[in-house]
């Protein structure tokens, strides 16, 4: 009975059946594979516009910024020297790659953007992405000339962070909007509105001390774990140019003293 039905179906709609089966299989494969060339296709669709406008990243500067940059670079040098004296791994970022945002996902549940740089520019999966203001996301998928970025406002984004002032640690979870929820490990943490939130560097995903946001509201002490609202320092709505920091070759962790290596003699 069933075989007869299928046979009749097949004789009536041979092409339609083949077409639908192919479409179904193709769509299912695309979904499972999450192929990066969808981003690459978007790049080539936008290529004429990008080529014609030829826009450049904005140069943001003023006297105060120059002064602060001077201070930072001298502090960085000092930090590097002190770290090398203590035999600690250097914690600096690589040279940034400027990238323009060419697409923003309008889906209401995911917060993703596509940028016009890919593996041809040295970008890898997991590279942190920054905008003027601070951290905005991480690379989740890389094609040759384009990459997909998961923003820190995406609900799947979980970042290990700490309060810059006290060092209290927690996890920052995205909430679709310009703010995120910060859950503290310790429920007795003291927080103040306006405290700066930076990446903690406990996990290897992000380098430590990247600015993420500021505490926006008093903590909800009833909730377990303790939660506060954090507003991002980077303008998540008005993103156009971003900087991607390709990962540096990982520095080995502090080496254990080995028995068979003769101890170095200090001068």
């Amino acid at each position, binding site marked *: 009975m069933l075989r007869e039905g299928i046979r009749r179906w097949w004789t009536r709609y*041979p092409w339609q059946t083949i077409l639908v089966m192919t479409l*179904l299989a193709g*769509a*299912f494969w695309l*979904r499972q594979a*999450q192929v990066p060339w969808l981003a690459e296709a978007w790049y080539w669709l936008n290529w004429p516009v990008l080529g014609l406008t030829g826009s450049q990243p904005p140069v943001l500067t003023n006297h105060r910024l120059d002064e602060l940059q001077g201070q930072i670079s001298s502090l960085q040098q000092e930090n590097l020297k002190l770290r090398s004296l203590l035999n600690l791994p250097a914690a600096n970022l690589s040279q940034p790659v400027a990238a323009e945002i060419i697409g923003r*996902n*309008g889906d209401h549940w995911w917060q993703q953007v596509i940028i016009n740089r890919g593996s041809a520019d040295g970008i890898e999966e997991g590279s942190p992405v920054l905008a003027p203001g601070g951290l905005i996301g991480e690379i989740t998928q890389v094609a040759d000339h384009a990459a997909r970025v998961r923003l820190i406002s995406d609900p799947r984004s979980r970042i290990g962070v700490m309060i810059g002032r006290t060092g209290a640690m927690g996890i920052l979870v995205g909430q*679709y909007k310009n703010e995120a929820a910060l859950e503290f490990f310790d429920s007795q943490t003291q927080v103040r509105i306006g405290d700066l939130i930076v990446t903690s560097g406990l996990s290897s995903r992000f380098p430590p001390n990247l600015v993420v946001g500021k505490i926006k509201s008093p903590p909800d002490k009833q909730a377990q774990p303790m939660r506060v609202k954090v507003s991002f320092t980077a303008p998540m709505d008005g993103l156009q140019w971003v900087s991607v920091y390709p990962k540096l070759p990982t520095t080995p962790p502090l080496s254990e003293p080995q028995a068979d290596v003769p101890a170095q003699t200090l001068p």
Partner: protein
Amino acid sequence: MSLRKPFPSQHWLGWFGTGVSALVALWAQWLLLPGLALAGAAVDWAVVWVVCWSYQRSWWSAGLGGLIMGLLWDSVTAPLPSHVPGLVLAGLLTVRLRGYRLLRSDPLAVGLLAFAMAVIQETCMALQFVALGNGNVQEIWAHHQKVSLASGLLASLWTPLAWWLLHTWWKKTDTLG
């Protein structure tokens, strides 16, 4: 004896155009243009497309259209939670509800259907988020209310135009039904 007929070339053109329109609907969500967004929410072009597709087709076509569109939408966003249940439901409910003829005019009827289907699609996503334990239930619910209303309104405004374009195309190429 054989019932097989050569497939007319205008049918091929019709299906090709349909495929292109589906891809355009998928990619359109990456474009945020002024006028296409309301209160931070954008148009659910995939829902608009599925409603237009299902409005004058069989149960099978509507379900399969929703399924394929859902799988493709997942592939340009993220696999879980999936867009498939919401879009399949949208296709099937469009077939179920179109018979009521609440409104005599087709463009208005598709607009009204698109509003309901956009709300259903967002509800399916919100329920999956709650089921997967991904985030706080109250926050998901608050986000859902805002997003489903805004995207429903936008979908009901844009669907009559999309439906008119697609309907004309399907009639011209004889690929309706």
